[in-house]
């Protein structure tokens, strides 16, 4: 299986590569259009600040390519946020794949949310074998509110969409590559998705 990990200079890509290795898969880092188009699965990681990450994406022309991909695509953390309509962080226009606007937690809670929280209302093949209220590791200051693309929920300040799906596009706010065995299971589920799902 050819797994392309989008390398646009924003994100802890090494952790994703290592996680794939632990579950018996090999990913390759790329920002090459052809390599990405021909991959069986595409992973879109990202940490850092939204507007500068978006700028890096644009520098590689990836803002045009990503929404046109036909195979399963998984955005992780900032990757997921950039797949939304917009982010309040740096007033960033997103890729518009998920129909939701990313906003900041208020200061009534500690920001960033950092640590292990539960995911529930799981509604996707991505969560095959994952029990309701499983713990995942999260580090983020901005979040996607509940919306029609939500496939999982987490509660911090309020209930929000901790995972999103639309057609072949998936996004998770948590870090499956850092969330123990359950996180690895979610990555494996993604890799085993039927390409047409």
């Amino acid at each position: 299986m050819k797994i392309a990990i989008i390398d646009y200079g924003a994100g802890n890509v090494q952790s994703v590569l290592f996680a794939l290795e632990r579950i018996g898969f090999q990913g390759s880092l790329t920002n090459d259009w052809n390599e990405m188009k021909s991959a069986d699965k595409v992973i879109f990681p990202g940490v850092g600040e939204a507007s500068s990450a978006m700028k890096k994406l644009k520098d590689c022309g990836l803002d045009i390519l990503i929404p046109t991909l036909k195979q399963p695509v998984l955005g992780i953390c900032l990757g997921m946020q950039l797949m939304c309509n917009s982010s309040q962080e740096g007033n960033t226009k997103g890729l518009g794949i998920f129909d939701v606007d990313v906003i900041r937690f208020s200061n009534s809670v500690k920001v960033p949310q950092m640590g292990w929280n539960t995911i529930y209302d799981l509604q996707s093949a991505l969560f095959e074998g994952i029990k309701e209220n499983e713990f995942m590791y999260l580090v983020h200051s901005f979040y996607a509110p509940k919306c029609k693309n939500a496939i999982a929920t987490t509660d911090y300040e309020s209930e929000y969409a901790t995972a999103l799906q639309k057609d072949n596009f998936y996004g998770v706010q948590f870090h499956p590559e850092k969330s123990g065995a359950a996180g690895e299971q979610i990555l494996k589920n993604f890799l085993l998705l039927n390409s047409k799902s």
Partner: protein
Amino acid sequence: MLTKRIIPCLDIKNGRTVKGVNFVDLKDAGDPVELAKKYAETGADELVFLDISATEERRATLIDLVRKVAASTNIPFTVGGGISSVDDVAALLKNGADKVSINSAAVKNPDLINELAGKFGSQCVVVAIDAKKIDNRWLVHLVGGKVATELDLFNWAKEVEQRGAGEILFTSMDNDGTKNGFANEALTKLSQIVNIPIIASGGAGTMNHFTDVFTDGKADAALAASVFHFQEIGIPELKRFLKDKNIDVRI
């Protein structure tokens, strides 16, 4: 519900764990990679590696270690000790560290915090603060607590938050090594004046100390070394204990 985190801290010298690691069921307790895996399996929420080596080759050895830990461990980890430049941090993150912790370098050059947060994001910037109460004032200390400064703990904490730190690791030198409990009063005050997560360090001796640091001290995470390394407190037992006390933990 976001859970409270339990974080074992491993001191590293020349790529090996030092002092006080006494795991009966490990083949090589000096091997940080094996120890990290063990802790991840038994329910540690994160790990902190503190590099205390002072040799020329320290950087290369540390990066090699970070890669090995990242490859074999499926929970987040922070690396600290002697980190003083953007390049140091870039190399550690590139090789799989999730967060870095800076201490003396942040005091000497506070702009480093802004630079790191801007370049890599606040989520990976932990500012470690060692402090000691002198004449009723909590003063920041440097170089592993050896050098006193005039910097007030609470002012400094506020400043590092404003400069973009994503988390504060506060060690009370008055409590460290005493096994008499964490510095809960100072921790509560820290939580009141900053809105980023606080990791409490220094003083863990009993399971009750962990209950207290989360309830009285309002800490988001608790870090300890010897009680875990000497297996005086097992992480699974500790978590069940905390859960019985109605503290949210990941089990």
